[in-house]
């Protein structure tokens, strides 16, 4: 139950990295082993933050692309929204390497603005996070992929920008959203350095340049807050963004 006495808590969840930002409390960075199950990771967060003794949490959770990658798919004309969700889950099964008949193990959330774009995460992950958020009278206010929040940056709202590259501690994501509604996304899970990420992006842009000319924005999400806040960056985790260069 939501309460006026509850506390807003921002959490960034990735594989091998967890950031917890509470009001009036310094950022808490947690780097568990990447093989540690998510349930154990979340329990560690509770213990470290003494959640049982604190006010109820209002959780705003952002997921890395490693836990919640983007999925693109083609929507045939005249398809209903529920069917679109099924198509998205079927497409997501390829991304997650899950057999298509087990597409029900994937949860998809469709984008309202761009047709044919969705975020996909495993049902077990979604359930774990929802249960964890509800503990200790907590409330899950939002559960979003960070790459979706990154597209709300001032640098991306320009009409000419069609491509966004996002480097997270555990993944590299490229979003190519054209105004016509067609979308292309790709996400690589792994610990890329800025140099590796830029070279990968350069390769990709060379291939894409032959097909079309599009302007893009490359940004990096850092574990530690930076001194100089990127003014044009996203509002979520505003101190953690920088231009990838």
């Amino acid at each position, binding site marked *: 139950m939501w309460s006026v006495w509850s506390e807003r808590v921002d959490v960034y969840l990735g594989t091998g990295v967890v950031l917890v930002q509470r009001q009036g409390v310094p950022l808490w960075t947690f780097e568990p082993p990447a093989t540690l199950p998510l349930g154990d990771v979340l329990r560690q967060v509770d213990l470290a933050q003494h959640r049982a003794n604190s006010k109820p949490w209002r959780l705003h959770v952002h997921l890395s692309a490693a836990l919640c990658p983007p999925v693109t798919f083609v929507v045939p004309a005249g398809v209903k929204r529920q069917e679109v969700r099924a198509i998205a889950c079927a497409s997501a099964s390829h991304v997650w390497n899950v057999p298509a008949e087990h597409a029900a193990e994937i*949860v998809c*959330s*469709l*984008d*309202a*603005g*761009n047709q044919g*774009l*969705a*975020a996909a*995460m495993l049902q077990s992950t*979604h359930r774990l996070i929802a249960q964890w958020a509800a503990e200790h009278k907590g409330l*899950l*206010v*939002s*559960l*979003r*992929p960070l*790459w*979706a929040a990154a*597209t*709300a940056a001032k640098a*991306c*709202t*320009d*009409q000419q*920008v*069609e491509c*966004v590259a996002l480097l997270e501690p555990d993944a590299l994501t490229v*979003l190519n*959203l054209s*105004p016509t509604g067609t979308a292309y996304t790709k996400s690589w899970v792994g610990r890329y350095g800025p140099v590796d990420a830029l070279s990968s992006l350069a390769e990709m842009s060379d291939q894409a340049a032959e097909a079309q000319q599009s302007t893009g924005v490359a940004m990096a999400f850092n574990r530690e807050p930076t001194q100089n806040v990127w003014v044009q960056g996203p509002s979520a985790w505003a101190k953690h963004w920088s231009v990838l260069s």
Partner: protein
Amino acid sequence: MRSVRIDFVEPKAWKFIWAAAALVVLVIVGSTGGKVWQLRQQRVVLEQQLAAMNAQQMQRLAQAPESPQDNPRAASEAAARRLLQRDWNRLYDAIETPALAKVRLVQLTMDAGSGQVVLEYELESMAQAAVVTRALNDASGQAGVWRLERVDKSSQGGGVVETDRFRAVLQGVIE
């Protein structure tokens, strides 16, 4: 580029907005209904008061009719009504009765407002006065309507033969 709006948690803001809108609508409907009900109640109370006042007025009028001094118009109407209601045929029936064929009616005076009638007969003898009174009362069908006021004796002729004449004055009330 259009920003991506994806959230695995259904936004609750809309629920609050809808709830608030429903609350506002309810408040508006409730206040309007309350106002209408209040006005209706006021109307009912006013109608009851008006009915009570009308009943009181009617009762007051029935119990104490207005005096002519208070309302000359009503007095005039009442007088006219009385005049129209008075049956003068009773007077004419009485004075035209065959029993009075031998006596001569000299004077007829009547007051329409009060119904007072004064008859003056010329008689040949004093005894005829009683006969005339009885005949008039009989013709009226009611004893005591006509009353003999006086009988005057007068002498007529002025010459060789002098005869006595009597004049009887009778008074009655026609209603």
